[in-house]
């Protein structure tokens, strides 16, 4: 299984990242039938306020450890062939992608379920924090994540 976990301050281009990961690691492979992806993007509205910019902070040593642990857990729960997880830190503007989770497996059930699991586990366990700058000039820490269920 190929795994790539990145935390980066550079801009995230999710579709390019997926294409690059696939072409450099399993270009002509014929074993995967399902690819599930999730891209989280910054909104310009939160809690009813217009957000101008956001700064994402993290605890580097722990982030790496936590992300590796949830990727390993997903690999134990589902027969995944490849996993790609990229998370932004630093200054982020509305419409910028924040997070990418992509998984490859033989069949769709594992791909869908693992992709969701990784995203939810990341939201709950990975030590990232968002600070918003509002158009009003106020800055505030995001207190908690929204629910991942509809």
């Amino acid at each position: 299984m190929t795994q790539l976990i990145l935390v980066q301050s550079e801009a995230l281009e999710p579709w390019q990242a997926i294409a690059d990961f696939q072409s450099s690691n399993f270009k002509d492979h014929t074993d995967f039938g399902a690819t599930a992806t999730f891209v989280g993007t910054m909104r310009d509205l939160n809690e009813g306020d217009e957000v101008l910019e956001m700064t994402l902070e993290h605890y580097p040593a722990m982030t790496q450890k936590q992300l590796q642990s949830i990727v390993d857990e997903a690999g134990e729960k589902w027969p995944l062939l490849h996993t790609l997880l990229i998370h932004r830190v630093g200054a982020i503007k509305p419409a910028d992608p924040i997070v990418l989770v992509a998984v490859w497996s033989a069949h769709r059930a594992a791909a869908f379920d693992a992709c969701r699991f990784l995203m939810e586990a990341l939201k709950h366990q990975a030590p990232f924090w968002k600070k918003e700058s509002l158009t009003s000039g106020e800055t505030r820490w995001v207190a908690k994540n929204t629910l991942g269920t509809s």
Partner: protein
Amino acid sequence: MVKILYFASLRELVGVPEASLDLGEPLDAAEVWDAVNPAIDLPEASLVAINQSYAALDSVVVPGDEVAFFPPVTGG
């Protein structure tokens, strides 16, 4: 010596990103907070990690540990 790290709103609350403490006697994580921040209550819902793994406030801290305090995580 114990290394103490603060992140996000807790770093702003304390005013510094890190501190250190010489352990005279065994302390749990909550007692470490109180020892280095006697005038500041640890905000409710705060999380603690010891050596980059989540821990409980009553987890025992030993010399050489890295203890981090931070608010609920909001990544993704």
